[in-house]
């Protein structure tokens, strides 16, 4: 075991896989000579050369599509977006091409490609740089969507993503790249669709993924001081999603709060909430609550931004609501 940053864990996943399989390439803005906008791909150009670690122009549509075409024809590209907020201009390639061509061809080809990069907000960057896209991608059949919250999970999940023969959206966060965690020296992978109980508790189930996991964790620590023991489930992959783990937890706690950085309308929290009411209705002692960013674009002003982004206090409030402590 040794302590690694989130960015190092992702890099290790890519490097280890690229050493084993020379059809894997990394493409994106600033990934090669600049060593990565967030230093995720640091030194990868040195090891693998410009044939496999490829700087692209600022052409998200173009390089996403070239990646899909290369994947159809035998390569396994990893496409890095500087942020998924920029991937919006390339979304046609992801939603129409990567996700659907296999189906439309009747299964004649596969598209083993990973689209990865930071997702959601990262401070006061304004409305166009702050959107959490997991709900949007998870909506599309043909894609798999992963959003890790910790370095250990990130490494194991990214290795699974790279080996997967289907297109995978792998979401990260600028604000998590510096997070540290003990990482095993030996190889491991983490399957998609398997959540993890990251804190055990009997009083309430909190479902939180990606960056919001850390908000939930903080809230749980505060709640514990008050004698409320929250069980935190990090689903880790958004699609497929480990509903079974959530339902089983609710059977024990009878209460649930979902924390999600998506907007509330048709977001992940809405879908998780629907499944809970359908499959665990009889176990609920209170309506499910959710904590999300509001139905408003991200503001710039510090005070408004703080109001906009979910924090531990909002999670505590929601837990107090489902436990009737308000």
């Amino acid at each position, binding site marked *: 075991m040794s302590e690694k940053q989130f960015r190092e864990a992702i890099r290790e996943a890519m490097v280890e896989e690229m050493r084993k399989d020379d059809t894997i390439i990394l493409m994106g803005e600033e990934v090669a000579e600049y060593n990565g906008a967030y230093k995720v791909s640091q030194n990868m150009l040195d090891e693998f050369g410009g044939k496999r670690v490829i700087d692209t122009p600022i052409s998200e549509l173009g390089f996403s599509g070239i990646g899909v075409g290369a994947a159809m024809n035998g390569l396994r590209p990893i496409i890095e977006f500087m942020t998924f907020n920029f991937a919006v201009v390339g979304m046609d390639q992801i939603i129409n091409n990567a996700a659907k061509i296999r189906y*439309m061809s009747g299964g004649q080809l596969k598209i083993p490609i990973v689209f990865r990069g930071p997702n959601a907000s990262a401070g006061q960057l304004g409305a166009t740089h702050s959107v959490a896209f997991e709900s949007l991608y998870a909506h599309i059949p043909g894609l798999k969507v992963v959003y890790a919250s910790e370095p250990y999970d990130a490494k194991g999940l990214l290795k699974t993503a790279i080996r997967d023969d289907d297109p995978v959206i792998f979401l990260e966060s600028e604000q998590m790249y510096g997070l540290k965690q003990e990482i095993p020296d030996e190889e491991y992978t983490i399957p998609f669709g398997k959540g993890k109980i990251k804190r055990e508790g009997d009083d309430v189930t909190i479902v939180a993924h990606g960056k919001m996991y850390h908000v939930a964790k903080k809230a749980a620590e505060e709640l514990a001081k008050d004698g409320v023991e929250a069980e935190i489930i990090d689903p880790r992959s958004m699609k497929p999603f480990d509903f079974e783990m959530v339902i089983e937890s609710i059977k024990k706690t009878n209460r649930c709060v979902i924390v999600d950085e998506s907007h509330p309308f048709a977001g992940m929290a809405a879908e998780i909430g629907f499944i809970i009411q359908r499959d665990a209705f009889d176990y609920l002692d209170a309506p499910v609550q959710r904590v999300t960013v509001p139905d408003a674009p991200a503001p710039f002003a510090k005070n408004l931004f703080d109001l906009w982004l979910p924090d531990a206090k909002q999670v505590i409030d929601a837990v107090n609501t489902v436990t009737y402590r308000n």
Partner: protein
Amino acid sequence: MAKKADETFTPTGKVYKSTTLPKPTRKKHTTLGLKDEDLMPVFRNMYLQRRFEERAAQMYQKGKFGGFLHLYIGQEAVSASTVHVLNDDDDIISAYRVHGLALARGTSPNACMAELYGKKTGCSKGKGGSMHFFDVERHFWGGHAIVGAHIPLGAGLAMANKYKKNGRIAICFFGDGAVDQGSLNETFNMAQLWKLPVVFVVENNGYSMGTSVERHSAGQLHKRGEAYGMKNGVANGMDFLSMVESLKDVVEEVRETSEPYFMEVKTYRYRGHSMSDPQNYRTKDELEEFRSFDPIERLKDYILKEKIQTQKEIDEVIEEVDQEVLDAIDFAEKSDAPDDHELFEDIYVQEDFPFHK
């Protein structure tokens, strides 16, 4: 007061002119590397493309199958010459007016017709339809119906070929409407910068749906390559031998230099954009003008003039193809529709993906 012309944004009143076609080649087939016996299979295939679509249109109008139907009729010299010039393992990708190219590549009329009918025996198992013919075994990569969205895919196919050093090139077809998409410009930039072995071909049939090329594109289409330092040129898509002449050198050069090329093929579709198009945007005279140098008739005349085959032999081939197409309709009609479970097949490679319910 401003002139009337200044009161509109999109240019108006201009129509596509056949005079923009480059002169057909005067070279004989033998000079272009074709043997006598090469010509009849080409004629046969071009006629197959034509007859297949004429019959498909009839069946569509009879309500035998749904969806869209975009006919390639008039453009057959482009597909036939492409397949003739390329190696069998070179990679072809195209847009949604794709029946002709699939038939040229060797996908069977049965599989093509069955795909139109949405049957399990179709070339995409009935899951793609008219716009999404695939035959990957024959290096035919579709069949793409978001205008311009497959242009980067074509470059990606070429990138993988270059990466694997397999000697294959890619050829990527699209219509004149696609030239206006950002995807073309982003792809051209990268294809040139990365020296990808790909031939981009705009089949300029004069109309982006119902908007003439003069009304939707500024400047000459092939000149879009200039901005990226990409070699480019114009070819006559209404004549098989002219197309062979143009493509041969280009394909050879792209394979040797691993640099992209942008070819503007001037061609013409006789039918509307799709089956529901009343074609008010063009005149009957214009259509007739183009039909007067029909590529299939032209090749037939050449074959007769050069005494490669007799009229009788040609008639026999025509009869044979007519029957082949009727057989394809029969095959499609008798084929089974996809099974219900197919709804969830081929979405993921993973066989046990837990679909959301």
